[in-house]
């Protein structure tokens, strides 16, 4: 008898330890998500509380399908993510390789590199709103003082430039995540394969391409996974820099959700959008996570 209970108990301990985590997630994420899914099947408006009881099936989703503004924001978000993540990866890789080469003052450089990571996205947004301001921003002021331009470049007013400014801010904020993790990968890299490659006659590029890059890829995927967990923080940046303007030309999914849900009070419709954006985020994360698991197999021998 005792033996039976002891075995049961041993199997229960980990679940017991995990239960607070699971309960929190259930209470604050899972239940709200279920609720939000239900809401997305109603025409719920904050201003008319009784509408939450009307069931309209998937009409909100059908309406999304026909909503040009939604699709514009959807594709803009995808484009934003693709550009931002790629630029961040390439820049981060470049910085990591650079710092890995530098011996003098490496620690200081590494510390400075972590600087943007501590900034809250809302601060990053404000900072670049300040810097790209067409009237008093340091960028225009500098360009004008140096005589490169004699007019004010409308960084946050012109649609394309505004998108550029937002991506710039996003890249500034998040490149260091890549740089730091890739640098950690470079530090962890064993010397032997590099030397073996040199002996085997690889040139610098070939060594990088066939030895270094595959080795640090798992680290890149960790960075990608971490990043895809919080890409939606870009909402804060856009919110403070352009608020989706001019004329909705920098509207991302997330700002659109906030506008429809809170400003227009159309909660049902906003929840349908929120669901789409959630699935998008999960897809991104899952994609990078499977890549990470696959890349990690290499690492087995290096442990």
């Amino acid at each position: 008898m005792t033996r039976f209970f002891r075995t049961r108990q041993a199997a229960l301990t980990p679940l017991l330890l995990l239960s607070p985590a699971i309960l929190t997630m259930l209470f604050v994420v899972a239940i709200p998500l279920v609720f939000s899914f239900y809401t997305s099947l109603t025409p719920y408006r904050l201003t008319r509380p009784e509408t939450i009881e009307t069931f309209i099936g998937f009409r909100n989703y059908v309406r999304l399908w026909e909503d040009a503004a939604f699709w514009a924001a959807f594709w803009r978000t995808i484009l934003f993510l693709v550009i931002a993540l790629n630029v961040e990866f390439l820049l981060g890789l470049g910085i990591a390789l650079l710092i890995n080469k530098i011996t003098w003052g490496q620690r200081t450089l590494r510390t400075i590199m972590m600087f943007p990571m501590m900034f809250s996205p809302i601060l990053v947004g404000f900072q670049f709103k300040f810097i790209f301001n067409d009237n008093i921003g340091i960028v225009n002021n500098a360009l004008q003082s140096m005589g490169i331009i004699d007019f004010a470049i409308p960084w946050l007013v012109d649609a394309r430039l505004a998108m550029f400014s937002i991506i710039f801010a996003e890249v500034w904020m998040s490149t260091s995540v890549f740089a730091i993790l890739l640098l950690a990968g470079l530090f962890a890299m064993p010397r032997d394969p590099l030397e073996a490659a040199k002996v085997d006659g690889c040139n610098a590029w070939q060594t990088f391409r066939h030895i270094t890059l595959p080795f640090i890829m798992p680290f890149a995927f960790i960075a990608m996974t971490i990043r895809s967990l919080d890409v939606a923080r870009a909402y804060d940046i856009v919110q403070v820099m352009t608020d989706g303007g001019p004329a909705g030309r920098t509207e991302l999914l997330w700002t659109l959700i906030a506008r429809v849900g809170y400003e227009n009070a159309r909660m049902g419709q906003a929840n349908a959008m929120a669901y789409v954006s959630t699935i998008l985020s999960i897809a991104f994360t899952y994609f990078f996570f499977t890549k990470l698991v696959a890349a990690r197999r290499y690492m087995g021998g290096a442990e």
Partner: protein
Amino acid sequence: MAGITLDRVVKRYGKLEVVHGIDLEIGHNEFVVLVGPSGCGKSTTLRMIAGLEDISDGDIRIGERVVNDLPPRKRNVSMVFQNYALYPHMNVRDNLGFGLKIAGQPAKVIEERVAEAAGILGLSELMDRIPAELSGGQRQRVAMGRAIVRHPDAFLFDEPLSNLDAKLRVQMRTEIKKLHGKVATTVVYVTHDQVEAMTLADRIVVMKDGYIEQVGTPMEVFNHPVNTFVASFIGSPPMNLIPGRIEGGEVRFSGGGTVPVPGRLKEHVRGGQEVIFGVRPDDLSPIGHGIHEARETCEIDLTVELAELLGTETLIYTSLAGQEIQGKMFDPRDLKVGETLTFRLSLDKAHLFDAATGRSVRPR
């Protein structure tokens, strides 16, 4: 008095059974070595004795107590781990005294016992260092010291020497043996190294695939292996094993050639029986270069294929009946590859195993 008794002990992980109802009696103050290839269940058995793994069936007794359901701390055993498991954030003194402190012993007792253990193991100079500042051998000693301060009923060793380099391993082996002399306690020692087993053990327990193959003194296990597994596992280089069949008082090898059936085994075989003939390299030497004064011998001509000079002896690689075997030449002279020599085979040291079961034809 604290021996350890294992009674039909079974370990299952889910549906997978890894230890199949083993029985073992370990006497008070006996030094028992569990030896076997990796995955044979020896470490699991040790961890079950320590209480780090639950047992799925059967009973374990330490002294008179059934300890099946007791957590490790209540079993009064101590353990030395493969990677030493020293507490990295404590210095040597605190590492040694940790168990006593947990037990709530007064500071004075702790101090005395720690000093005593440190004295025995020569750690007195190192008391204020942390594990990271110690060499491999020193860490090993601290791990042993931690085991002895508590005056436990039994020491459990889990491959304690496998992280050391060859020279240090031999040295620590002797120290463990000496330690057992000084601090008489029951010891259960797990290793995959048969040399360690032979040199340390009062009794060896050879395990394979979750079964005990043979239990006996080093001499018994070496001289009278019960089956081909034990025969090939104990002893280095391993025993030569050559398949054949009994025909009219001779063993006819499948690959051609014969040797007489050793006299002491004649009654135990029948004509036509498929057997495996076993002889250790030590018992197969060129005439005039053997060590045994064997009463019963036979002679065979063998061609040297490779010779390894080991110092006082030379290991000769050759083949018999199409099978690679090894012999030894004591008091060696120069050898040429391709040279044919007449070897003397000590039949009274040879073994016969039934080919179907792998068991010795004459179990003791």
